[in-house]
């Protein structure tokens, strides 16, 4: 039986390659993701280990709470500088040095702010003690005066700064000019994963970051010969409440785990796409095996006649699948390593320089890759293998062996069941919300729809084919007939494409809804004409002097500064937005359902109606809150407003906010103007010194938000394109198999006078119909999923549901064109068939 399986595979090399491609691509994704994240994890842990090599202990504020933001660590309070002297006096302490860090952003020579593409722009105190410092000077000297700065080697290299140059830096206060006294690396890396670093003397840093007399942490090195545990105990004894001492290793572990948590999000996102590719691949494999088992009916029946058992027939099919799965998984693993290397290169091309380290290929990568790759292939082949088992020996003897696979009715029951379970899981998952349930629901719906698709395959193919038949004449009509010939095959082939397009359409619908909701939430929340934000992706803040400068411009009638920060509301971490209470009515639109906006000025908190409902709070209630800086307290609910994504769920006044948060940076300034001409120009001119600012009209702001959504969509489309590619490979495969199967028929057509060109047209027409069929079902399913997803996120601010018809039509047209492309090889092959060989084929 082994021989039969192997011979069969050798006879169908092409089919093998096409089938394998889907698995290769999926496993490449898995392996690439793992290798990349493992490598980065390892590199960062080595880097941090290196940096804190000589730090035995760190004294710091106790964590108030863990940040909710991806990649965010613990939120801590600063400690008094006076503690430094006390620490130094503890017996056994060799060296102790305080550090502070804050916001500092370089301005390049061309006057533009140095942007990092997501990474922070860090300012910190330069630690003159080599052993304790994270920075290693490679050129120049440490900063000594308040006008000195040490720049990271990454920025210096990229923006051509050297020792002795002067550089302007954006700070929490007004921008200032500094002299570069030295260039430093961060541990052994040029910089910290793309973050820029500006290091000042400790006192300068404290002043610049508005932390005079305070430190973020104190790094301690134990004196030679001292007992570390005793020193730690002694340190702990002198620390006031709210301050802790931890080992350097703890800090390394925390920093590494913060990074790996961030990388974890990233790798899960990539693995989702790997899973999608494999899922689509499974459909192609299933289809290929179904067709080939069908084509081998006689051969398999003959095997049964000469004594092969059912079990042997079953295994001959599965062995083939296992070999395909194994070989393609191995290739995928290898390609994944290459992909990881390529991706690092690509990222550094975008300016995200990652510290370099050895490639990490863990056993887990190989195990998961192989298990998933082989597993998916086997699972997909089980159904066809069971069909093979059902072939009766007499099938070898009759002219047109008809093998009854599962009856259509059973298919409908199974398909209906899957769809129903899928919709149930989806609904449950969306309301809970539980993302795994949503995924499971989507998978079930896909399987269910794929099962049900044969019902509509004939009528839809017939309708789709009619214009083609009109346009292309007989070859078009024959293509149409071929696509209608086996509804099951048509549906199975189209299913893979259906999934790809369903996902793309769902994303498109979701994105369009998001985009429109963003616009409407801006319209519903902001009445200001001008909006000032940071240019670094809306994430970063800017100097607290900006609102004052803007307010002084002639024609500006009102300014509101917006802040945001994390706090604990009824014991769960949430984000609080704050706005200047003075002019809030002139710049912000708050649709109050209860209470008044005026409550903000009294230090009360406003919540949106959704939060009020889910947290069971009403106006007048006192609720428990906690802040990193000031600890636990209670606050009165002063009002309830209609949900708005831009404002968020919790809104406070600026006074309240500033008293509870440590040195918050403004995130936005809303400007109301009197509409006089040139106000915008004057504002831009006045804020010229702050090149990190974006000054936009409300329309521009809306456009920018939409552009962000489209950028994200573009990225997701690119990743989903892989699934579509696999689906297309499936179409090529099916067409190729169909051509083999119809060799005689094509020969007959050629004998009675069909031209080569007409043969090609016929195959192309069939392919286009297949592709359009898959696309139509996919777009329908995808629109449903997208609408469901968007509708369920109403609370999260997706208030509008938009179906981007033009995008969907574009997808449809593209799918048709891709179908045309997929047909080119099979069509050429069919046209080249030798007439005689074709009609004399057994």
């Amino acid at each position, binding site marked *: 039986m082994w021989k039969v399986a192997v011979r069969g595979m050798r006879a169908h090399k092409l089919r093998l390659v096409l089938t394998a491609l889907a698995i290769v691509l999926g496993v490449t994704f898995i392996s690439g993701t793992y290798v990349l994240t493992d490598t980065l994890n390892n590199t960062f842990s080595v880097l941090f280990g290196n940096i804190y090599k000589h730090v035995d202990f760190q004294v710091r504020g106790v964590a108030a709470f863990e940040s909710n933001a991806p990649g965010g660590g613990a939120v801590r309070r600063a400690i008094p500088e006076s503690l430094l002297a006390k620490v130094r006096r503890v017996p056994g302490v060799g060296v102790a040095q305080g550090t502070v860090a804050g916001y500092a952003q370089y301005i390049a020579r061309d006057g533009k702010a140095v942007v990092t593409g997501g990474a922070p722009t860090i300012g910190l105190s330069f630690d003159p003690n080599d052993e304790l410092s994270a920075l290693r000077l490679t050129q120049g000297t440490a900063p000594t005066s308040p006008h000195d700065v040490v720049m990271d080697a990454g920025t210096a290299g990229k923006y051509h700064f050297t020792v002795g140059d002067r550089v302007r830096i954006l700070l929490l206060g007004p921008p200032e000019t500094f002299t570069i006294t030295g260039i430093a690396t961060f541990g052994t890396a040029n910089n910290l994963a793309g973050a820029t670093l500006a290091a000042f003397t400790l006192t300068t840093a404290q002043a610049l970051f508005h932390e005079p007399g305070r430190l973020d942490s104190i790094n301690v090195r134990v004196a030679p010969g001292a007992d570390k545990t005793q020193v730690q105990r002694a340190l702990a004894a002198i620390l006031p409440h709210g301050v802790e001492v931890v080992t350097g290793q703890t800090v390394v572990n925390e920093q590494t785990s913060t990074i790996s948590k961030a990388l974890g999000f990233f790798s899960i996102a990539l693995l989702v796409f790997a899973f999608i590719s494999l899922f689509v691949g499974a459909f192609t494999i299933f289809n290929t095996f179904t067709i080939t088992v069908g084509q081998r009916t006689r051969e398999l029946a003959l095997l049964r006649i000469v004594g092969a058992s059912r079990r042997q027939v079953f295994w001959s099919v599965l062995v083939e699948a296992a070999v395909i799965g194994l070989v393609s998984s191995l290739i995928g693993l290898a390609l994944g390593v290459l992909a990881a290397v390529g991706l690092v290169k690509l990222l550094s091309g975008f300016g995200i320089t990652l510290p370099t380290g050895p490639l990490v290929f863990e056993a887990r990568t190989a195990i998961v890759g192989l298990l998933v790759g082989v597993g998916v292939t086997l699972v997909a082949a089980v159904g066809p293998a069971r069909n093979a088992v059902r072939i009766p020996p007499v099938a070898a003897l009759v002219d047109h062996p008809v093998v009854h696979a599962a009856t259509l009715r059973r298919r409908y029951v199974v398909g209906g069941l899957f769809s129903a379970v899928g919709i149930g899981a989806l609904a449950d998952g969306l309301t809970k919300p539980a993302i795994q349930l949503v995924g499971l629901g989507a998978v079930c719906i896909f399987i269910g729809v794929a099962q049900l698709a044969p019902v509509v395959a004939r009528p839809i193919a017939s309708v789709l084919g009619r214009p083609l038949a009109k346009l292309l*004449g*007989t*070859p078009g*009509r*024959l293509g149409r*007939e*071929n696509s*209608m*010939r086996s509804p099951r095959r048509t549906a199975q082939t189209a299913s893979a494409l259906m999934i790809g397009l369903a996902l793309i359409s769902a994303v498109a619908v979701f994105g369009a809804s998001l985009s429109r909701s963003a616009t409407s939430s801006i319209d519903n929340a902001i009445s200001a004409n001008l909006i000032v934000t940071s240019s670094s992706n809306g994430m970063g803040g800017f100097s607290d002097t900006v609102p004052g400068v803007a307010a002084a411009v002639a024609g500006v009638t009102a300014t509101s500064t917006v802040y945001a920060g994390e706090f604990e509301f009824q014991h769960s971490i949430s984000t609080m937005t704050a706005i200047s209470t003075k002019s809030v009515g002139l710049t912000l639109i708050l649709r109050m359902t209860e209470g008044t906006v005026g409550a903000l000025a009294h230090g009360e908190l406003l919540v949106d109606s959704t939060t009020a409902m889910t947290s069971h709070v009403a106006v007048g209630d006192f609720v428990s809150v906690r802040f990193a800086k000031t600890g636990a307290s209670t606050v009165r609910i002063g009002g309830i407003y209609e949900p708005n994504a831009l404002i968020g769920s919790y809104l406070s006044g600026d006074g309240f906010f500033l008293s509870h948060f440590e040195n918050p940076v403004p995130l936005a300034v809303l400007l109301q103007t009197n509409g006089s001409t040139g106000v915008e120009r004057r504002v831009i001119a006045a804020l010229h010194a702050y090149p990190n600012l974006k000054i936009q009209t409300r329309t521009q702001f809306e456009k920018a938000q939409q552009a962000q959504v489209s950028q994200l969509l573009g990225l997701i489309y690119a990743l989903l394109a892989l699934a579509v590619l696999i689906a297309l490979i499936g179409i090529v495969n099916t067409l190729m198999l169909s051509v083999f199967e119809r060799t*005689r*028929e094509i020969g*007959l*057509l*050629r*004998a*009675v*006078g*069909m*031209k*080569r060109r*007409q043969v090609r047209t016929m195959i192309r027409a069939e392919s286009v119909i297949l592709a359009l069929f898959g696309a139509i079902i996919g777009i329908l399913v995808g629109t449903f999923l997208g609408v469901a997803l968007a509708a369920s996120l109403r609370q999260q601010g997706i208030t509008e549901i938009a179906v981007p018809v033009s995008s969907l039509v574009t997808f449809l047209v593209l799918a048709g064109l891709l179908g045309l492309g997929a047909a080119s090889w099979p069509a050429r092959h069919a046209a080249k068939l030798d*007439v*005689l060989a074709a*009609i004399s084929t057994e």
Partner: protein
Amino acid sequence: MTLTEPDRTVTAAAHAVDLFKTYGTGDAAVHALSGVNVAFDRGRFTAVMGPSGSGKSTLMHCMAGLDRPTSGRTFIGGQDISLLNDAGLTQLRRDRIGFVFQAFNLVPTLTARENVTLPADLAGKKVDLEWLAYLADALGITDRLSHRPSELSGGQQQRVACARALINRPELIFADEPTGNLDSNSSAEMLGFLRRSVREFEQSVVMVTHDPRGAAFSDCVVFLGDGKVVGELQAPTEDSVLERMRQMGT
């Protein structure tokens, strides 16, 4: 027919000159045709007979432009088709030749009617509806035209193929054992029709057959043996064919 009477080739529907067809090379070479000179008369019904493996199908394939001979030339109505490229041959088959094979004559996705009109449709020509109706009626398939091949009996399928072969009024029809799978009644009906087409509209027909009774429908029988023409019989009857076959020791 040998070329000792050159005048006949001028009027022939098709003829072949020094036709060789060799499959494989060296020791494994099979000479399916080794020097065939033959002419099929216009407006006549010619049967080709011979033992299995004697090269009948090969001869037909070469003469109909389905296959290329190793050497020698083949003509359709005086035109040397060895000079044609694939497109030319395709057009030749579509417009000037009709085919009936032993089996698998019809495209399964098309109805009987669509199968019949296929050559015309492929050429983008208008179908002569009267002619179609006449053929369908004569072949007794009028009420079967909207059916698919899978819904037709073997005899009906062959008659549909026959109608298709005739629809373009080709110069020549090639039929390779068209009745090979049919019972004697269906065979007789089919052959009767072919003979009628020869009589009534001077259709030229070349038919490969194993059946002496089938050969008796023809005007002339050409005998092949080992890739050569080994004999010819004019105005055959079942008995005379059998007699000749016995003489040739088959």
